[in-house]
């Protein structure tokens, strides 16, 4: 069994980005359920994986995609409604609006959005994203760059206003 102190440390560091990552496929409480399932599986391990962060994100990705494939028809209506759910903490001090960022991010192509979420909020390098998604490094960089460009174009006015 894994040390509970290590589990607490991993939970504090990765739980929120993992839920945000799972929201790329699952809506509502399903994303949190997927993350919880992955953490429970991690606790049941005899010894921790070598790279806990990579293990967690890979497990959440597999869990979310598996759940999405089995029920995406049923949850299509729920996914459409989920565009209004909150993805970020609304503190008010950010240069861009949290709800606008979430809505803009939700409208991005999936590959672009995945690269942006993993690079910015999970703190992964492009090489780690490439290993996780099985996509070539150059393709990952292209997705990330296109995602950033689209976000900047769609929220440029807001960024400029906030920066002023």
């Amino acid at each position, binding site marked *: 069994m894994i040390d509970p102190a290590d589990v607490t440390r991993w939970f504090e560091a990765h739980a929120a980005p993992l839920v*945000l990552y799972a929201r790329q496929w699952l809506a509502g409480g399903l994303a*949190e359920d997927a993350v919880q399932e992955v953490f429970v599986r991690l606790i049941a391990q005899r010894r921790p994986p070598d790279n806990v962060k990579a293990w967690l994100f890979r497990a959440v990705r597999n869990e979310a995609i598996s759940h999405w494939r089995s029920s995406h028809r049923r949850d299509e209506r729920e996914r459409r409604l989920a565009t209004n759910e909150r993805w970020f903490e609304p503190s008010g001090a950010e240069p861009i609006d*949290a709800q606008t960022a979430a809505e803009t991010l939700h409208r991005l192509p999936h590959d672009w959005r995945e690269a*942006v979420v993993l690079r910015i909020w999970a703190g992964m390098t492009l090489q780690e994203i490439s290993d996780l998604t099985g996509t070539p490094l150059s393709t990952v960089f292209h997705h990330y760059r296109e995602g950033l460009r689209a976000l900047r174009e769609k929220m440029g006015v807001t960024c400029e206003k*906030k920066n002023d």
Partner: protein
Amino acid sequence: MREEERLNDGEREAEEALTALRPIRPAFEVSRLMFEAARRANQRQVWAWRGIAAALAGGLVLSLVFRSPARVVEKPVYVQSTPRESPLPSPPRVATASLLDPDVALRGGNDYLAVRDRVLALGIRSLPRAQPAAWPVAPAISAPIEQQPPPTDSIHRLFDAMQFGGRS
């Protein structure tokens, strides 16, 4: 080339602006995760024991269904007999054992025990014939009456008995 160096200023600015956003924390806590993990571990243990019990039960049923018939092995067994002392007194012998003994039943003699044994063994027909009563018997007539001389003495005694009532 590092990936950051390939981004232009606008992209890097957008990256920094997005980094300031904090994803929402999940609603569950670590304690819930630990509790759920412990519950599942116990559940797995229960299922493991159920599996073991089911396997044992299945093996038992299969062994009962497919067991080979019992093989009879004949072996000579030598037992040294020892006189056994009965703690209880032997029951009294009944008379029927001796009554069926033909030697006893056909034992000669007319004493009581011999007659009793024969009657019990052979029935009432084995009783000896009764002796005739000791009545006076008339003398046997060997010749026709016309040819015999008249029994004067007997006639006289009979006549006297009829005439005088046997007082002579």
